[in-house]
């Protein structure tokens, strides 16, 4: 078994062992189910079946849930000193970081898989644009991976989970909404740059089922950026 997966597995077990995973999944399903089926939606009125409401609410609930998933990953190990144990095992810093990243992504993926029944039932109600549903799921995975990467980084900078959580939300907020707001108040190149930085646009275009390399590059840069910074924080012990 590759080292990355061994690390990921331990992490996933600890999510489920601490009930954290169950609570997050249940709350996530409850919230998104509530909005998909009951709240201010016209699923039963419009003949057109869609999961737009579901993706709309998930866009925000994942934004808040992911820092809660990632906050513990490295901060707790920094605090208890177990990071020293892990690093002195036969693994590289990169494997530690990517293993933990993978674990968080698997947890989010499990939560998303649990929402597939929504898709199945909604699609029975009327015509549904299958491409845009899969695009929506794909966009959510990419968005989650980006925020996990950011959360992992903030977790690596501290030994306090709460600080990690708040810092991840703070950084995430820029990508989630602030860059968009800024770009609306700017013109020319600066406006275009902030517009490109805003995660919302890329999320929307992928969830329409249009896979553009421009959007993929955006997400992959965000993910690798976060991972590289996390690894850098781990190896910071050697900089002093």
């Amino acid at each position, binding site marked *: *078994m590759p*080292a990355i997966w*061994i*690390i990921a597995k*331990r992490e996933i*077990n*600890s999510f489920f*062992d*601490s009930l954290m995973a169950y609570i997050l999944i249940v709350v996530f399903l409850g919230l998104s189910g509530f909005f998909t089926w009951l709240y201010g939606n016209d699923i039963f009125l419009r003949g057109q079946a869609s999961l737009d409401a579901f993706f709309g609410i998930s866009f925000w609930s994942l934004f808040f849930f992911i820092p809660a998933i990632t906050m513990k990953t490295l901060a707790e190990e920094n605090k*208890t*000193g*177990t990071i*020293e*144990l892990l*690093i*002195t*095992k*036969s*693994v*590289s810093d990169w494997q530690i970081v990517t293993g933990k990243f993978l674990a968080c992504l698997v947890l989010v993926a499990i939560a998303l898989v649990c929402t597939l029944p929504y898709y199945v039932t909604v699609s029975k109600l009327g015509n549904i644009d299958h491409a845009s549903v899969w695009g929506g799921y794909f966009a959510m995975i990419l968005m989650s991976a980006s925020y996990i990467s950011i959360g992992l980084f903030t977790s690596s900078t501290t030994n306090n989970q709460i600080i990690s959580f708040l810092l991840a939300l703070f950084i995430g907020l820029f990508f989630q909404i602030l860059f968009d707001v800024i770009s609306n108040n700017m013109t020319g190149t600066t406006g275009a740059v902030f517009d490109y930085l805003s995660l919302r646009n890329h999320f929307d275009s992928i969830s329409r089922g249009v896979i553009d390399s421009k959007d993929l590059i955006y997400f992959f840069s965000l993910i690798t950026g976060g991972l590289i910074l996390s690894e850098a924080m781990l190896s910071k*012990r*050697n900089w*002093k």
Partner: protein
Amino acid sequence: MAIEIENLTKRYGLQNAVDNISFKVNTREVLGFLGPNGAGKSTTMKIIACFIAPHQGDVRLDNLSIHSNPDEIKRRIGYLPENNPLYLDMYVMDYLFFVASIQRVEKSTIDSRVREMVGVCGLSNEKHKRIGELSKGYRQRVGLAQAIIHNPEVLILDEPTSGLDPNQIVEIRKLIKELGKEKTVILSTHILPEVEATCDRILIINRGRLVADGSPSDLRKQAQGQEILNIQLETENSPATIKEKLMQLNTVASVESEGNGQKFFKVVSKTEMSSRKNVFRTCVDNNWILLEMTGQETRLEDVFRELTN
């Protein structure tokens, strides 16, 4: 497997936590790394275990270097960090499985290896508990078990008995001694009896520098330098006369009368000389009755204090 430490230097700010240290540990040697708090023991061990990189110098195991083969070195080393950090929410067995697989113990042997470690480290009654539920002594055993589970040739143990009660200390020392029969062991401590009880060789380190290197008895001898004899006589002669006569011996450097009994003397010989025979003959010649003559042992504690102050 032999370990060579070459010119290791590690700075924290302006301070050299480890200052150009070099030494070699031979195969199956149990080396005690002794020094006061803040001497640089943990820093040196962290470097050997590939946790932190030195500013200068290298550590070699066979032909492997910490700079170019950290992965391979980590696999051949078992490391117990200071304060024994552990995943407290994990079950003992799960934890040992985790460590075994991450240290690339062959899959088919992981089961038997974990069971063996549980036996060797005396964890049979605790193996289904969470690590957080264990007493300190048992946590230390889990720490040792995770360090040796991949059967490393080298063991690095940073203060393995700190915080344990006397019975636990004796048990852990016994375990380390047993392990030392087939492994190269470096253990750090600031407790003197510990090195005497477990180590073949001692390195004393102070302010990041090596100040002594040798077996416990070597170090004692080295510090002793001059032989010191305590004698007790029964005679009518006055202490002054006795002193004068003893001073005439060509091996004697100084004589002091000790205590209030007036018949106890402390005879210090010249460097590298022994006065035992001469003192005996003088007693016979003068008809003094020699009630006692004992060599004064320099204690390791004195050596330690002298070197690290």
